[in-house]
């Protein structure tokens, strides 16, 4: 079983936890990561782990009043490394992990649980101001600037009287200069909406028929290139975001990846064409996107339209019988990855031979 040409996914370290873990994130510029979750007694928890001698060492455990659903380092500087979290009560907090007793920033952002959070403008990723976007079950998507207390800097919500869809996922993108920035949000009914923050307009929307579990741009800090959206029934869609057709929108390719829900998608920070999807049955799939020969063509009326490429499966493994709830690539070490699953486990994975693709 040696001398593989394909990349291999190695379960390097596994650790059982005594709480339900929802999210895990690498602390930038370190061998540490945080896990966020929910104690059985109904409180929230953040744990900080470090890889030491091939094992995980718990550095810090922080217990908070409300279960924590999601977190991001995306809007913090490399020097500060503050963690922004969203909890079950709709609060957005920013924590200094060195002094976690009082949040650096706190706002009751939503009426209900914050399902998803994303940050941009920090860590040297994305031009422009540091901003955090949160998506909630109350149907709103709000953008926050840590420098402004209490109020969001942008609020995308349904019109009064219309039923509110549960927002499951949010993602920043297109932050290639100081002005441009988009937020993409996915909803439980399969809607994907792309909001242009510069113009404060809805730039594009589509429906992929099934709830959108996870959305991610291949990179946040370049002119929109690709967007991957995963769905409840095991499919994912890759949109080529470079060419927008006035009626047809963006070209996409879809692939049936897992036999169950695809909970997460994460692009490799060192190579945007590779991404990992995490499935409801505990499986991980590593994909590669290949561009078509021509990325755009003219339709019958001479309007430019995108051409989708293809995806190929590089590797797949099954880690657990329970869904994998979160996934994060190390921004510093190619191929290093953590994932958490609902069997209360966190795993450090190594994916080999990624540089050869």
């Amino acid at each position: 079983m040696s001398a593989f040409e394909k990349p291999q996914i190695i379960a390097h370290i596994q650790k059982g936890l005594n709480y339900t873990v929802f999210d895990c994130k690498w602390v930038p510029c370190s061998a540490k990561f945080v896990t966020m979750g929910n104690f059985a007694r109904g409180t929230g928890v953040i744990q900080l782990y470090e890889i030491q001698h091939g094992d995980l060492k718990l550095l810090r455990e922080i217990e908070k009043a409300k279960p924590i659903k999601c977190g991001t380092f995306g809007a913090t500087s490399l020097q500060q490394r503050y963690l922004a979290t969203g909890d079950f009560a709709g609060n957005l907090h920013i924590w200094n992990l060195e002094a976690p007793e009082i949040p650096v920033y706190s706002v009751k952002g939503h009426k209900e649980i914050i399902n998803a959070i994303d940050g941009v403008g920090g860590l040297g990723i994305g031009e422009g101001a540091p901003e955090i976007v949160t998506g909630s079950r109350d149907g709103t998507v709000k953008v926050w600037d840590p420098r402004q207390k209490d109020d969001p800097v942008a609020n995308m919500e349904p019109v009064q009287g219309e039923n509110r869809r549960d927002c499951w996922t949010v993602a920043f993108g297109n932050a290639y200069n100081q002005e441009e920035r988009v937020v993409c949000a996915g909803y439980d009914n399969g809607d994907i909406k792309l909001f242009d923050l510069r113009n404060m307009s809805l730039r594009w929307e589509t429906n992929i028929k099934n709830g959108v579990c996870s959305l991610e741009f291949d990179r946040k800090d370049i002119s929109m290139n690709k967007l991957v959206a995963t769905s409840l029934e095991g499919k994912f869609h890759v949109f080529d975001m470079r060419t927008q057709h006035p009626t047809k929108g963006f070209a996409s390719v879809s692939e049936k990846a897992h036999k169950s829900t695809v909970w997460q998608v994460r692009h490799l920070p060192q190579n945007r064409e590779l991404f990992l999807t995490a499935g409801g049955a505990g499986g991980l799939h590593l994909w590669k996107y290949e561009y078509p020969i021509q990325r755009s063509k003219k339709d019958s009326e001479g309007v430019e339209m995108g051409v989708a490429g293809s995806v190929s499966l590089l590797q797949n493994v099954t880690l657990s019988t329970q869904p994998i709830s979160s996934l994060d690539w190390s921004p510093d070490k190619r191929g290093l990855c953590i994932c958490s699953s609902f069997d209360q486990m966190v795993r450090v994975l190594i994916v080999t031979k990624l540089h050869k693709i």
Partner: protein
Amino acid sequence: MTAKDYPSLWGFGTTKTFKIPVEHLDFKYIEKCSDVKHLEKILCVLRSGEEGYYPELTEFCEKRLGSLAPESRALRKEKPAATASSFTAEEWEQIDGDIKSWVSEIKKEENNVHFHETETFSAMEDNLPPVRGSNSRLHVSKEKYSKSKPAKKKIPRDYAEWDKFDVEKECSKIDEDYKEKTIVNNKSHLSKIETRIDTAGLTEKEKDFLATHEKEKGNEAFNSGDYEEAVTYYTRSISVLPTIAAYNNRAQAEIKLQNWNSAFQDCGKVLELEPGNLKALLRRATTYKHQNKLQEAIEDLRKVLEVEPDNELAKKTLSEVERDLKNSEPASKTQMKGKRMFIQEVEDAENEDGKDSGKNPEDGSGDKKAAEPTGAGRAAEPGAMGNIQKKLTGKSEGGKRPERGAPRRGRAPGAGADKRGRPPAPATPGSANGHPGGGRGAGDPAAAAALPGSGAPPPAPVSPAGLKSQGNELFKSGQFAEAALRYSAAIAQLEPAGSGSADDLSVLYSNRAACYLKEGNCSGCIQDCNRALELHPFSIKPLLRRAMAYETLEQYQKAYVDYKTVLQIDCGIQLANDSVNRITRILMDLDGPRWREKLSPIPAVPTAAQLRAWQPAAETPPDQVGDSCSHHQLGVTDEKMFKALKEEGNQCVKDKNYKDALSKYSECLKINNKECAIYTNRALCYLKLGQFEEAKQDCDQALQIDNRNVKACYRRALAHKGLKNYQKSLNDLNKVLLLDSSIVEAKLELEEVTRSLNIEDNTASSSREKERRKIEIQEVNEGHEEPEGTSEEVSTDCLASEKGLTSNGPQEYCEKLPITKPNNAYEFGQVINAISSRKDQEACAHLLAITEPKDMPMLLSNKLEGDTFLLLIQSLKNNLIDKNPSLVYQHLLHLSKAERFKMMLTLISKGQKEQIEELFDDLTDTPNKHFTLEDVQALKRQYEL
């Protein structure tokens, strides 16, 4: 009843899930089956075990499927994650060690980062853009078009506008404001990416991180083929922290973009930082190769091969370069042999220059100086003509001429650097023969005989026309040397005829020039072109050929001048356009930003020549295979041409070169006058050039094609504003805002125009008052018994009475004219003359009442004049509007169809125009079922109001 109930019909029956005949679950069947879908189904059935458990058959089926479609989803299996045991001890050690070393490394670095924590933070803050406008809300709804406008801070467009958004139109427009552009342009973002990153307040670690990150973005862009984007990101990376890898990668991206010079510089940087960097050496060799510095390329490649003897790429490139070098060597050998000849040639050339100038008056053409200022620069030309290089891009087939005569001397980029050192003259047989051939034909037969390339002896004397057609044939079949021979013979026969056959001679020279050009005999080509141009100034083909020859000789300035001249004659020639762009780049590289100053003046082309270019020349020389001289002649489809012209026009507008853009668009319209966008674009150019009347006409055209074109409407408003027709401008702006309420510029303009309108209204009313008073005074002076009734009356017929008074004509109001319905133009003319001599509005109104409006154009025939027209308008306004508005409307409508109407409109004064306008306003105020407001508006447009 389904087939399932009758298994006998299906032989052994079918499987449950996919209804596959059971006999398909068989080794032989599977082996032959090549239907992937079917095999997948079979595999699914076998795996499910519903027809029994056959492990071997399943495996066989998997193999078969794997061989047909290795990517098949059915073959995906759940696998456990790999562990240490999945690898050999060695491999595992490597993987594990890699992680361990990284962990210890990152820990060290992490500690370093945190030393700086507080000091640098404030500097970072300062760089950040301000907080986004507070609480901008965006309401999202499913029915996105049926909702109230959200409270947004900046709202270029709301959802409803997206609905109206016509992308095609939008695409074809050149938007003055790029930020408003909502079309996703693949390349548009490139210009918006900052090429520098502000690194103030960043630690070394962060800079390193940033630089790596930007480089990775560059790598990704490179891999997906976006080389320009890649260059941008590498540049960013370098701006943070210059690294060898970033320079090296940027060099590679530049090579892909064929920016040899930049690539060369980047390689140089790398080699400065790390002498002997193999990648940089290889890449520099590539740039040398393409810049035709073959010796240097070989040196670099040898260096690479010293270190890495097995480097495939280096070997390949080396062999290519050596081949190129060999190809150029025979030429240099002939150069050695032909040295004597070459001296002769230089003399020849010099003599010829003398001859040329001496000959000039004889020819009687006399316009040589005017026609060819470039000729002034030609004295230097023999000196530099040896400097033939491969064309820089190597794109055109001209770059690979196997029988190219001149040696490649790449060292000096500037033309004329070789001048001093007795430059190698074109030593090809072609040129050897070319000069005597050109030399007034005396030595021509001898030269033809001396031509080594032609096996056949020169044919028996034929007529020049016959020789020419033979030459054309030979040219088409690619035998350029022999074709040149025929042409030379023809020239020799025609030469004595002198100016009588100047046209034919010109064509022959031009054709021979084409042959020389093909052969690579650039100097010969240039000389022939010169002669052709002497005989026939400003013909396109010789100019083009000369330009190509100059370009090949690296005399870019001259080439540029020639191409520009060609473009003046016919700006649709793609080849010339491309070349001008290319040469501009080269010249900028060579001479820096002030390159234009070194150019000799570009001759102004007389319009006659331009016109001539429009008619496909009857004297078209043979069309060459690869030489796409002229679009017209090659019959490139109009559509392509149209697009190209439009693109060029748009480019010109972007460069703020409105005059050129104007001509491009005008040409577009000659091809297709139904394209709305061209009119609006041309209108923009007119606006920019301050030609408002033309702009307005173009907008009118555009609006005729598309009544709801916002751009056209807006631009017409601007034109009206320029023409000081503020009212119309106002109307147009209102229309614009009606179509699209979010156009900020329109709102601004509207305010401005309203302001101007108010001012004008004020001045107008005051002037009217003045007028009125003046008339009163006059009347008093004249001492007329007829007292004016009310001042209102005075104001309305002020003009008429004024005229009447100044002409001192007797005012015979009392005597009524007997007016009958006129039956023809003559009768009408009589009546109207009588009326206008008395300024009798009532009589005129009567006449208008009894005349059928639709007969008016016929009755007026071509006699419509300002005075008559004004009288008609006044009587309509004062006498008829109250009684019968629909008749007034009808009259106005039909008046606008009369002959000379448009012409007359341009002649009438502003005051008169105002009167018409008042009439229209009255008409608008009196609603009627016979016409609608829109009709009036449309008519108003006819009256250019």
